């Protein structure tokens, strides 16, 4: 029951931030992919089943909000949630470097996928879309690590733990 409460709260915060403050920032060119950030954080903590469920629910809500291409965020975030959840079984999840790499990879993949739906104008668009992917990745990944660290500090315990069988476990 507690997991469900945290699940709903995290999704709610991510969606409200996306439609208020972050939307204003994005319009000025600073894109923070809060959907990926929340999905990666959740999947690191709750593993692949919950990760995929969280990604699907969050993505579907974002898709319904956008009104076009319903299912694009849901599909990408489901797979990312599952992938990060599976990887978290074999990684030192408390390591900021691990989190940074996961966030870089996940943000880049999600942005490339989302950009594909906006792509028109042939090769002329490639440069701009690449810039958009790079900017979102550069912004989201370090911010995500900070958010994960702050969350960890607030809960005053290891939030994510380490992979079973690793030396730090």
């Amino acid at each position: 029951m507690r997991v469900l409460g945290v699940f709903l709260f995290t999704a709610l915060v991510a969606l409200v931030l996306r439609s208020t403050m972050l939307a204003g920032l994005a319009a000025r060119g600073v894109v923070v992919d809060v959907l990926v950030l929340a999905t990666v954080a959740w999947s690191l903590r709750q593993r692949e089943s919950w990760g995929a469920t969280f990604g699907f629910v969050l993505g579907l809500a974002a898709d319904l909000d956008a009104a076009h291409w319903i299912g694009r965020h849901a599909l990408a975030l489901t797979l990312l949630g599952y992938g990060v959840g599976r990887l978290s079984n074999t990684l030192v999840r408390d390591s900021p470097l691990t989190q940074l790499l996961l966030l870089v990879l996940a943000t880049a993949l999600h942005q490339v996928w989302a950009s594909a739906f906006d792509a028109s104008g042939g090769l002329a668009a490639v440069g701009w879309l690449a810039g958009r992917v790079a900017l979102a990745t550069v912004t989201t990944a370090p911010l995500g690590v900070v958010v994960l660290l702050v969350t960890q500090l607030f809960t005053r315990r290891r939030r994510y733990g380490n992979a079973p069988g690793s030396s730090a476990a």
Partner: protein
Amino acid sequence: MPSMLPPAERRSVVLVTVYAALSLVLLLVGERIPAAGLRGVGAWLFAPFDRVAGAGDRLFTSWAENTQLHARVARLEVENARLRLMAAESPRLREQLGLPAWQGLSLRPVEVLALAGGDPLPNAVTLSAGANDGVRIGDAVLTSDGLIGRVSEVWPGLSRATLITDPNQAVACEVETTGVHGILRFVPTPRPRLVFSAVALADTVRVGERVVTSDLSLRYPRGVPVGRVARIATDATGLMQEIELVPAARIARLRHAFVAPGPRPPADGIPRPRLEFEPDRLTGSRAGGRAAGGDSARRAR
């Protein structure tokens, strides 16, 4: 090989397969699903949280905004005094020319609760007023700077407006000074920009000129600023001009807006442009003869 996996992993594989399949089905048929009701429920659920988040944002920026607004009020007061003088003679001149009286816009102030849609630019907003407040589908949405979009979905206490940054929106516009007509569209790639298209090469448009909504528009009231000409080029066909605009309204900073009723469709349901500058004598309502009235009616259809 799901059957060779441990039960927990098998369950997660089944789960992700179901989610992925569902997402793919939605991608294929999602546009046909009537999602407006779901969006209405979502907007209603999220409205209190959006208000809280918006209040924090407003509080944070209120000091700087207050200073700007003071300066703006002073500037507008000076301009208002000048316009009052012109307004006194305008009805007299219109009457002499046989033009109908200018119908002002009735504006309903609303709060922008949330921005929705694409990255990097939003393509829709949730508004704090709905059907209970008299908002109807098709109403124009604008700020004090200019047009931002059009109401596309209405619920009892809230509504959703599609912005001019939605690539599926098109607005009939004209250059304010010369009356050159064209169509405003948002082009997302290779970089997001507002484009004033379908302008013939022979038409003269200059950088810096203001573009406003056209009186030929069936959806928007006339004369609402849309943007200023920033760059002029020839389109891919080489037959038309492609004019890039700087938007009049700041899409990145939407907090308050106004809803203005757009031109309503006629009672017979057949939409047709109504030329506001059309002289009354051609409509047959004043002296002008049956022939002129009949001609006007034919042209209007």
